[in-house]
């Protein structure tokens, strides 16, 4: 499916995730399929919620992608050394959210972190008008912390570690 031919100036991103307690994450190929796959999590309406997904209220969506991984080689006699990309790791997403013990998505995330072995599909959705560009990936949650200092509203911080190679892009138009 063609990518929308439009530059999203300063787009805002939102985070969605599968809503089941024991979800079956999308397969690698299905992470790139919008219809009936990613759309089921994000919803067919921009910023909606799909039948198998739920929105996660987060302060901000952090950077995602891959971490730098390269080897630096010294070459005798050459002014410059050489940098060769090597196997890279997916970027972990450390996310802050307002802590609400009644929030269904945060309770699922807390449960995932307690387990440590729950694979779940997450979707970062960039929305422009009624159109959505989605980055879907499978990941596990860890490092779930609740910070309830009296000087500020209670918040929770958790880290999503994406599984290697399990990501895909899709869009609704």
């Amino acid at each position, binding site marked *: 499916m063609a990518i929308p031919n439009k530059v999203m100036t300063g787009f805002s991103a939102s985070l969605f995730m599968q809503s089941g307690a024991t979800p079956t*994450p999308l*397969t*690698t190929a299905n992470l790139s*399929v*919008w219809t009936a796959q990613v759309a089921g999590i994000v919803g067919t309406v921009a910023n909606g919620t799909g039948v198998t997904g739920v929105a996660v209220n987060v302060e901000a969506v952090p950077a995602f992608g891959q971490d730098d991984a390269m080897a630096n080689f010294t070459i005798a006699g050459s002014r410059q050394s050489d940098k060769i990309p090597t196997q890279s790791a997916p970027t972990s997403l450390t996310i802050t959210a307002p802590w609400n013990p009644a929030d269904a998505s945060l309770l699922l995330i807390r449960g995932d972190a307690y387990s440590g072995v729950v694979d779940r599909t997450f979707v970062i959705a960039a929305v422009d008008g009624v159109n959505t560009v989605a980055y879907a990936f499978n990941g596990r949650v860890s490092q779930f912390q609740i910070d309830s200092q009296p000087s500020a509203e209670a918040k929770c911080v958790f880290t999503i570690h994406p599984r290697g190679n399990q990501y895909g892009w899709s869009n609704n138009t």
Partner: protein
Amino acid sequence: MTLKAAIKTLSTTYQSLDLVAQGCVVDAAEVDAALKAAEPDSVDVVCLQVLAKYNPYVPKPKVTEK
């Protein structure tokens, strides 16, 4: 490997599609034809695109008789 089996393998794996597709040797012409007929935004297209990457279809050049 049949194309159907390759698509099934690719559509159900959680491994890297590139890595798995490299091990799927299929008929390039069949992949090309299936890709043209496949519905956009389907899992078949995703699988066929990665199969086509490692099984490129090169049409036979037309030979003109003198």
